[in-house]
């Protein structure tokens, strides 16, 4: 299932997938896979993404 909340939060900051990937230390393809719902990230990566985007886990990853 696509993670549209993550995509929206990233777009709200006007960040590219590459910028978010650099901020959390993963590849751009990994951010792309998370947004598309092709990859289920570990809690560690979820927290890193939330910190980078200034959101909570609930806001980005809770359905």
């Amino acid at each position: 299932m696509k993670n549209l909340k993550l995509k929206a939060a990233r777009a709200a900051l006007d960040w590219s997938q590459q910028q978010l990937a650099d901020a959390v230390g993963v590849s751009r393809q990994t951010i792309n896979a998370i947004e598309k719902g092709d990859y289920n990230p570990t809690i560690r990566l979820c927290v890193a993404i939330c910190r980078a985007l200034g959101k909570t886990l609930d806001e980005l990853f809770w359905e």
Partner: protein
Amino acid sequence: MDYFALGLGVGVLAGLLVYGARLLALRRRAAACCRYDERQQAARGRAFRAAFLTHLIYAALVTVLTAGGASWLDVPEALFLGVVIAVGVFAQVCIWNDAYFELSEKPRATILPLVLLGVLQLLNVWRHVAEDGWLPGGRIDFITLMGLSVGALMLLTVVTALIKLSADRRREARDEES
């Protein structure tokens, strides 16, 4: 003058120089280089499993064929071919899961060395076959087998990389539209 020894020496020296230069370049980018993120590590694990299984099946097949009296290759050459096939499976699965190299970021730097290596291997086979023929002694010898298998592996990897690159670009264009 022993040209084989001379060629071997020059080849080893050239290899060491290239390796040294690569090592220096890697040290400069040590912080970011050669690290795979969690998704890539998982994908590489799946690729390793596929390669390992491929090698097991291939080794079993070679054992059965050898026991049955097949004489298309000597066993060491047949096992070398199995390693090349397994590496090939690993590379293709990794490329298809974005877990091998920065294909979409640096396509030329990624693909050109593979093309060069593949063509060099095939040229080496061509030179060798022109001198000794395809089947000296009724079997494929190691130089021909190595050149053909590694050359084919490199070119297959290039084809996979190009298909993946093209698929990614189409997908990104579709995503931007939606």
